[in-house]
């Protein structure tokens, strides 16, 4: 506690921190970025290992024989799907009943706030079909879920076939201690949302669904299967769920262990694992894999049907079959055996998966970076904000020079009081106006779509996105500096106080975001921290305004779109990138209103107003 009590050492430390503030900030920023890039370097990461004792050794024997028959069922399903022009509910119910499951259906309907142009849907109406295999060995208090989406077109028929094949095979085994629920959901995530809400008796998004007639125990784990061809070359594991939530790492470990055992090629983010970590290309491969995970997590949207399970405390992942014309082929029987093995292991669970990590990044399927390793990267960025705040505090608390000696007259006292009121007002007005702009950005796009469609030649979706962009830009032009009316001119004191508030606000905001969704917090910190650190009313206006706009949340999103495409090795032209950017905004708004994703309200209600405060400081005088 010497530092807190000894005035001399405190003074020395504080003067060091204020004198070297800028260099320290720059070093911290570099160190933060370097640390983050270092995370993908293999010697700095940990090997994945199975933490859960109940799933420890791979002592199960997989015997699933009926891959070909499953594919035939898949073809039959496809034929019926084509005939009914949607989900073949009757046929599915009959087939599931024939396999000996308890079969139930759930109807749901949902009108989207505006048409989804990516998936071409507006009024969604559908049916989920699920069959429950009751556990013969134990009281039916726990359950596992295997789901396959019934997608439009020719996709995922094989997944449904394999699901039915596995159901038939599982039915004949006697070792199940947990109910197994086989779910075929229509309209991918919307159907999944309806089913999960029905299962847990909640209604968070105002969707219409019929209550579930049959129910198993509390769900312990879930896998969602996506297969679109008879023969696949590799399996891809998708982990990122709603709001960047990830399942327990043991689920990924389990998948990896079985892929190794059975000899299936497995990928994460579509990237195979490489062994040459010490070469440049090997390292950049790992960086690419990790960055893809960061980008996907930061988007806050569910990247597979499993994404919504995580909200209910259920560990879930999506397994995607990929056919990429490699030499190495895997047939449906092998995938069936892999799933059988995983379910038998999950069946052995005594508690929910909790032993392993929940916060991690994966540069490859066999290596991971845990929260203790990646948080310092964020911490180094956040500490810049605190250093700037300290600097401002010191500047504010030491008046430039003291002229009057001790004796305080009544006049100056009244003056200072008036000044504090004016200061308070000049602090409050920008805060209030920025937040009102944020609220407008949050509310107006959906409210105004009808009016916009009437008056302008645009579709509803375009109307929503363009209104959002218009409000965003209008926020920049708003006269925030009403203090000029009050006190003539912005004072030095005034902007310092405002900046102190804004910097602390940003620090707390980013800290909270990084705890819930590290990737989002880190990306925002990467762009917003430099803005927060350098902006003052005295820097060259035009250049700084340009930099500020470049580093604003919307431009960050635009760059992220291009960067994401680049990472996926699908570079696009600026024109396409812009269109993609627009569709990403509409998807973000839809994700918020359909599934309750928090990214859109976070950006509009908190991050954008905070950025506006810095904008405000730039134009203080």
């Amino acid at each position, binding site marked *: 506690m010497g530092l*807190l*009590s*000894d*005035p*001399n050492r*405190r003074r020395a430390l504080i003067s060091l921190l204020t004198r070297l503030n800028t260099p320290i900030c720059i070093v911290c920023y570099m160190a933060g970025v370097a640390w983050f890039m270092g995370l993908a370097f293999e010697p700095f990461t940990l090997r994945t290992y199975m933490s859960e004792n109940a799933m420890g050794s791979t002592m199960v024997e997989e015997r699933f024989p009926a891959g070909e028959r499953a594919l035939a069922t898949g073809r039959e399903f496809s034929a019926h799907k084509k005939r009914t022009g949607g989900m073949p509910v009757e046929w599915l119910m009959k087939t599931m009943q024939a396999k000996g499951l308890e079969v139930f259906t759930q109807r749901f309907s949902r009108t989207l706030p505006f048409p989804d142009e990516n998936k071409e849907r507006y009024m969604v109406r559908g049916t989920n079909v699920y069959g429950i295999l009751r556990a013969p060995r134990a009281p039916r208090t726990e359950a596992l879920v295997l789901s396959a989406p019934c997608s439009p077109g020719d996709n995922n028929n094989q997944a449904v076939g394999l699901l039915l094949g596995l159901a038939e095979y599982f039915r004949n085994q006697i070792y199940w201690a947990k109910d197994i629920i086989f779910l075929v959901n229509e309209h991918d995530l919307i159907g999944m949302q309806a089913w999960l809400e029905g299962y847990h008796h909640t209604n968070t998004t105002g969707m219409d669904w019929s209550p579930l007639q049959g129910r198993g125990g509390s769900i312990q784990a879930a896998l969602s299967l996506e297969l679109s061809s008879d023969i696949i070359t590799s399996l891809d594991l998708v982990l990122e769920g709603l709001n960047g*939530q*990830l399942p327990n790492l043991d689920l990924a470990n389990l998948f990896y262990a079985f892929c190794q055992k059975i000899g299936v090629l497995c990928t994460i983010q579509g990237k195979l694992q490489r062994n040459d970590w010490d070469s440049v290309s090997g390292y950049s491969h790992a960086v690419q894999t990790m960055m893809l995970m960061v980008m996907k997590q930061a988007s806050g949207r569910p990247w597979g049907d499993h994404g919504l399970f*995580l*909200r209910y*405390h259920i560990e879930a992942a999506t397994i995607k079959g990929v056919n990429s014309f490699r030499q190495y082929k895997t047939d449906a029987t092998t995938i069936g055996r892999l799933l059988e093995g995983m379910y038998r292991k999950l069946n052995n669970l005594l508690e*929910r998966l*909790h032993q392993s990590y*929940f*916060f991690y990044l994966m540069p490859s399927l066999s290596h991971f970076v845990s929260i203790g390793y990646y948080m310092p990267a964020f911490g180094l960025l956040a500490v810049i904000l*605190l250093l700037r*705040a*300290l600097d401002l*505090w010191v500047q504010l608390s030491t008046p430039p020079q003291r002229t009057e000696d*001790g*004796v*305080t007259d*009544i006049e100056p*006292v*009244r003056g200072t*009081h008036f000044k504090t009121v004016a200061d308070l007002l000049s602090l409050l007005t920008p805060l209030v106006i920025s937040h009102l702009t944020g609220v407008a950005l949050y509310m107006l796009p959906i409210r105004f779509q009808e009016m916009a469609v009437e008056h302008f030649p645009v579709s509803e979706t375009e109307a929503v996105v363009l209104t959002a962009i218009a409000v965003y830009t209008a926020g920049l032009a708003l006269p925030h500096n009403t203090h000029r009316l009050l006190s003539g001119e912005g004072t030095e004191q005034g902007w310092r106080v405002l900046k102190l508030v804004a910097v*602390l606000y940003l*620090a*707390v*905001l980013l*800290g*909270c975001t990084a*705890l*819930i969704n590290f990737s989002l917090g880190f990306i925002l910190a990467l762009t917003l921290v430099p803005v927060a650190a350098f902006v003052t009313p005295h820097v060259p206006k035009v250049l700084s305004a340009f930099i500020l706009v470049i580093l604003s949340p919307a431009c960050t999103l635009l760059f992220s779109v291009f960067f994401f495409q680049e990472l996926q090795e699908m570079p696009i032209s600026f024109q396409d990138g812009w269109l993609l950017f627009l569709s990403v905004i509409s998807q973000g708004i839809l994700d918020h209103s359909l599934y309750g994703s928090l990214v859109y309200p976070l950006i509009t209600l908190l991050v954008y107003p905070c950025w506006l405060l810095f904008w405000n400081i730039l134009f203080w005088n």
Partner: protein
Amino acid sequence: MAAPLTLLLLVAVTVRAALFRSSLSELISERVEVVSPLTAWKRVIEGLALLDLGVSPYSGDVFHETPLTIYLFHFLVDYAEVTFMVSVAGSSVVVTYLILFQFRKQKFALEADRYPLDCLELIRSPKEMYYIPLKVAMFYLLNPFTILSCVAKSTCGLNNAIIALFILSTIKGNVLLSAIFLSLATYQSIYPLTLCAPALLYLMQRQYIPVNFRRASFWWFIVQYAFMYLGSLFVIICLSFFLLGSWDYLPSVYGFILSVPDLTPNIGLFWYFFAEMFEHFRLFFLCVFQINVFFYTIPLSIKLKEHPVFLIFMQLAVISIFKSYPTVGDISLYMAFLPVWSHLHRFLRNIFLVSCVLLACSALFPVLWHLWIYAGSANSNFYYAITLLFNVAQILLVSDYFYAFLRREHHLTYGLYLKRKDGSEATLVLK
């Protein structure tokens, strides 16, 4: 003074009324930071329902309010929101007047020229003091902690009002009312018992009774006060007994406060320790933790013998940090006093650090709660870490104020610009 205060009250009431009507109020009333098992409105409703059915409200393990509170709400249940607003507004007005009164007295200190000359800038000018009561009211009425606590209808607001009335009557010098309100506050939550030390010191100072153990007048005054205090406590307890017809409430209220059976997480220090502890150490550590709350009374009253009002502030802070079921409502009461000590600001050392930590912790509470309870990805250690940090920050805040107060006293006696023997400028070092 009255006009700004009225405006402030209007603003405060509007904010609360708006929040009462919004969907947020339900969310807020579920937060563990805002309501404790003692003060939750939900439990009061449960107790009222049991009372209406003719069952003792203390059967079962839900209701832990005192009998007088439940009978109060028996009549006021339909006007609960109004009651809470009135209690909050009332206590702020009371505190304001109290500070006004206190300062009228302090002006005498200005005229007293017993201080060295260069200390004049340490003494507040009347102009500065003029706005302090208003600032106090603002700190209490517009403090987000108070607003949350009021919107959640936590009965903590009532307890705060009683304590404010106690402080007012003490400072007005009314011995009987002071004893009565102190006994009411004790009856509500035991811990305000420690406030009897500052009350006694203050009243004796007012009546020019020296604090001297050998004087009979000293002992005589203590006996008088104790008699009034115990008498009114006895009356209140018997009244509760006659209202309910049983002594059920004693173990259910005071046993509940002292033995801490409910380990629902809150912003205090008890829950995690006692959840982790082996059962056979429980009694020992319970005693240690509870004595901890009361123990600081002795050293603090010896050190702050001359300054009972500051002692009240310290005691309130100690209680709200170390009590068994603290909520943000308790914190807001002692935070309301912070503007009173604005003359200490030049001596505060860690105020920036502490306010940053308090701010960050308040934002992190709901986030970590979400990660622990809803997302399931964090665990109780994360939440407790923040609780611990929050309390460390509070302790630093209070000890910083204590240090600043003592340092100001030191300067008032020895002069502001200390010189070493060789004539160079000296600095004070706390070791």
